[in-house]
């Protein structure tokens, strides 16, 4: 067994994961803030106003990265859910369930900031457009996963049911992503693409990409923080948790 596989197996051990995530958290939160600070400064004060949208374009420096994250978080949740269902790895269940509220937060921010951008740009807070509606469905899917997880007395059974719902909900991801291509929507088509490059100026692209990086790092920090607590709750009767509680450790 090579060192990486061995480490991966060790990561599946709750006390090891708890300590590992605890050591990683300050670095992840720190890196995220360090990336978000210049992104905010560039987006709010340095990037030019758009020739069509004017100053309201500044909302897009948070709206677009959050929208990307709403899809990424769902994919991560469903991926962890798949691992949890197939290999019955407890840590994968915890990661999947920890990703749900973080993904819901990103989706909520996407919808609210999009709505606040829409009012001065489109003249309305909301339209039942394919992109907006499928993003709202995504938020409801997150709520469904969270609700189903909490509906069971046995958290492991709840997690398995919620992981299954998360997997079924994956069908909504291409609908969200391609809605602007498949249907004639009010929402504009994407301006940044991994495959075909970007059609926006670097002065606008840099803060956008910096914020996208910051939100990705934040996602991992937040998921690890939540998974640590779930680990503590699930392992409450174990000696290592009792010792931790007795010591009043902050580790």
């Amino acid at each position, binding site marked *: 067994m090579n060192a990486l596989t061995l480490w991966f197996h060790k990561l599946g051990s709750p006390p090891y994961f708890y300590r590992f995530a605890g050591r990683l958290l300050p670095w992840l939160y720190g890196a995220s803030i360090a990336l978000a600070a210049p992104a905010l400064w560039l987006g709010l004060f340095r990037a030019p106003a758009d020739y069509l949208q004017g100053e309201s374009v500044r909302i897009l420096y948070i709206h677009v990265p959050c929208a990307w994250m709403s899809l990424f978080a769902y994919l991560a949740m469903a991926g962890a859910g798949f691992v949890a269902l197939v290999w019955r790895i407890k840590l994968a269940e915890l990661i999947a369930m920890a990703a749900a509220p973080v993904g819901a937060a990103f989706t909520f921010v996407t919808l*609210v900031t999009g709505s606040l951008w829409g009012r001065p740009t489109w003249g309305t807070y909301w339209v039942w457009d394919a992109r907006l509606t499928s993003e709202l469905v995504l938020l409801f899917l997150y709520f469904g996963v969270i609700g189903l997880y909490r509906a069971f007395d046995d958290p492991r059974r709840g997690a398995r049911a919620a992981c299954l719902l998360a997997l079924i909900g994956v069908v909504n991801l291409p609908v969200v992503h391609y809605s602007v291509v498949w249907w004639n929507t009010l929402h504009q088509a994407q301006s940044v693409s991994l495959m075909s490059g970007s059609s926006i100026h670097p002065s606008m692209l840099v803060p956008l990409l910096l914020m996208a990086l910051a939100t990705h790092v934040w996602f991992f920090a937040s998921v690890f923080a939540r998974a640590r607590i779930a680990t503590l709750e699930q392992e*409450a009767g174990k000696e290592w948790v009792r010792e931790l509680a007795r010591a009043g450790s902050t580790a």
Partner: protein
Amino acid sequence: MNPMPFVIAAYAVFAVVFVYDAVAPWLQRRRVLAGLRARAAREARRRGETGGGAAA
């Protein structure tokens, strides 16, 4: 239409949600650890009352 109130509101929502997202797990962890400590103290007290828990 002046877009600045909308820009400020959007950034305020973003800040509030993510400050809450950072603080909530930290508070929950404190609550869980306090609960575990209280449970350990209750168990220790019960063991003391039943003569050191020799039968346990």
